[in-house]
């Protein structure tokens, strides 16, 4: 079901896409959670297959989502693909929870559910932020194509700072909120050894690989998205003319960014929200021993629990930062260093310009090469020569590289085509002729009378 996202999101205005991405997708997940746990609550090992299915679907969609996000040139499409990735992670956590529950590992099950829900909460925060940021970019540059962006960090410093917060959070880097939920998910994955079924254990360790690969590529993806859009030289006149986004946009982003930071340092806020919404007892994973409450993996594990404390981490980073600053100041005392601004080293050729920079396509080229079988990249190189076909004097070379969505071609296109045709047929029932309408009633009556004999 992931295909409508990249198409729907970029089409909608940015504030709407933020809403769509952050909130709407959660409906489906919320629905899945509730139906899975409230109503079809698995209680026997027989229902583990459902969890395994969710795990498989989740890790596949996470991986596929992030792979496509990595090579996307359209900033909003890239964010949309990354939504698919994050939903995959959420579903993965959900699947783990189902598996644990079906083996009656209750506290692990709630732990995995907590991980999954925390991630959806966090995703709501940072993805809104990113979509709003993308919206500001588009608002100021009138382009969604990252090939034409660049250098916006200087033109839009506040936007870039906030976007960076979002990018760091979504890449799962401490001390922001994305890290918390990824940590929880990783711990849930690591706890899978308690499932007394070797096949499941091994399958889940494969899911772990997918998850880790996803995390790695996600980091690269957001380096690319942020770096290409905000850093280096503007690649087009649109980017060059950009100015800081309006205050209202900044304020919106600041709220979301604040949430990323607050939920990062105090995951307990998020946990209490989720606990109340899902009836998960989150307190069992919080160790209130120190002034800095730490999060810990379930206690029923026969090993020492793993734990992290985000507030403490924050304090540590702060004090280390202070120490580092102090030390550097101490080491450089008495020397007067000057910071000179000069053009980037150009190997002595001069005239570095934006055409020499890395583009989004070239930046992701190594990844594309590594995963070429999935992308089914087709590259066409168009060369034009000055003199006939003298290959030494090229007038221009243009490389056109397109990649296809394997799933789109093989699975979705035929399915959606059939569905649309069917719906179109159904819709035409409304012929406008009252006789036909009466006939429907007559047929409905006769069918139901026949059906009544059967049931």
């Amino acid at each position: 079901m992931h295909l409508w996202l990249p198409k729907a999101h970029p089409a909608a205005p940015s504030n709407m896409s933020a809403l769509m991405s952050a909130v709407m997708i959660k409906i489906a997940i919320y629905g899945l959670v509730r139906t899975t746990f409230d109503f079809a609550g698995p209680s026997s090992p027989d229902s583990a297959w459902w969890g395994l299915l969710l795990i498989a679907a989740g890790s596949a969609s996470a991986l596929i989502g992030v792979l496509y996000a990595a090579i996307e040139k359209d900033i909003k499409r890239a964010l949309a693909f990354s939504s698919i990735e994050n939903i995959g992670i959420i579903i993965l956590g959900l699947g783990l929870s189902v598996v644990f529950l079906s083996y009656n590992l209750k506290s692990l099950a709630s732990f995995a559910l907590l991980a999954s829900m925390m991630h959806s909460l966090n995703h709501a925060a940072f993805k809104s932020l990113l979509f709003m940021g993308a919206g500001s970019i588009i608002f100021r540059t009138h382009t969604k194509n990252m090939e034409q962006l660049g250098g916006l960090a200087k033109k839009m410093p506040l936007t870039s700072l906030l976007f960076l917060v979002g990018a760091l959070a979504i890449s799962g880097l401490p001390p922001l909120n994305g890290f918390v939920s990824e940590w929880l998910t990783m711990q849930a994955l690591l706890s899978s050894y308690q499932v007394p079924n070797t096949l499941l254990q091994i399958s889940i360790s494969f899911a772990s690989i997918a998850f880790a690969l996803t995390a790695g590529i996600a980091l690269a993806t957001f380096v690319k998205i942020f770096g290409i859009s905000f850093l280096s030289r503007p690649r087009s006149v649109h980017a060059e003319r950009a100015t800081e986004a309006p205050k209202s946009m900044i304020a919106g982003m600041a709220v979301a960014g604040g949430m990323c930071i607050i939920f990062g340092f105090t995951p307990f806020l998020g946990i209490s929200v989720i606990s109340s919404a899902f009836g998960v007892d989150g307190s069992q994973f919080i160790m209130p021993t120190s002034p800095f409450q730490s999060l810990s993996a379930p206690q029923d594990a026969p090993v020492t629990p793993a734990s992290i404390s985000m507030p403490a981490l924050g304090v540590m980073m702060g004090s280390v930062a202070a120490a580092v600053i102090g030390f550097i100041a101490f080491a450089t005392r008495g020397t007067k260093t000057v910071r000179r601004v000069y053009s980037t080293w150009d190997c002595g050729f001069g005239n570095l310009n934006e055409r020499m920079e890395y583009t989004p396509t070239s930046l992701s080229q190594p990844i594309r090469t590594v995963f070429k079988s999935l992308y089914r990249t087709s590259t066409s190189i168009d060369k034009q020569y000055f003199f006939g076909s003298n290959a030494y004097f090229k007038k221009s070379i243009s490389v056109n590289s397109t990649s296809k969505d394997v799933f789109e071609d093989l699975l979705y296109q035929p399915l959606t085509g059939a569905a649309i045709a069917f719906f179109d047929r159904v819709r035409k029932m409304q012929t406008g002729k009252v006789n036909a309408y009466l006939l429907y009633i007559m047929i409905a009556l006769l069918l139901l009378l026949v059906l009544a004999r059967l049931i």
Partner: protein
Amino acid sequence: MSETLTLVAIGIFQTIAIIAFAPLLMGIMRKVKARTQKRLGASVLQPYYDLLKLLKKDEVVSDQSSWIFRAAPWVMLVATATAALFVPIFLPFSPFGTAGDILVMLGLFGLARFFIMLAGLDVASAFGGLGTSREMMISALVEPALFLTIFVVSLTLGGTNLSSIVAASAGQFVSGVLIVPSMLFALIAFFVVMLAESGRIPFDNPATHLELTMVHEAMVLEYSGKSLAMIQWSQSIKQAILLALFVNLFIPAGMASSIVGIDTAATSVVSFIAKVLLLSMLVAFIETRTAKWRLFRLPDLLAMAIASSMIGVLFFYL
């Protein structure tokens, strides 16, 4: 209370020690490498001289760069130094263990890497982009290998809390278990990952500025002065942390399984130093014997690491 304070003091001492001696380790590796290549090599203290020199030098900043470029070295140093807090070094214990585990450590490394990759892009030169682009691929692939290694380690030793897994490893050794099969495979994987993470051959050549081969150096090419010093230093801290971790996880010999007395503590400090020195010499040897691999052969190596950890997982379960 005072016991807690002592522990915290020990932890901070450990951290400061690894931060302080990291450049030395780098110097030793360079020296060993030089000697094995029949060169005299610079003094082992050369990294310190470099750092001091750089700290006092003027800085040249590209006119294309933004605040990211200037912030990156700071973030990098803070992140790696914070990561050092969580790693048990001389003792099987870090007092900050409940606050952060191995995943936090990796996250902090990721944070540092994130910023340095951005800095590479920020200067608008083709070199920076090139470095970032390559680093993107390598880091994306290192991540699963590393996570799977951690998977094996935490399965075998229990949990991801660094203190507890190091203690468990030491405890195993004391109780007579020389090597656990799954850990053996994890060791291979971790070694590969360690090389990749610390930017050593065959992944990256820390001593080159040739655009065909450089990865990390390409990203920091524009840096100078204080910023460059901080980047180099944090790079060496990261390497030291990884070496220490490797030693403590996989070669627990000599490590005290608990803090009992001054003599066992001394033993473990001495044995730790010996092991780290040996390991860094091994890395240096390997660097001498191997050429840097072509970029697109690197996934094969990482895939091998993943496969190795996977076999470790299978061994654990079967």
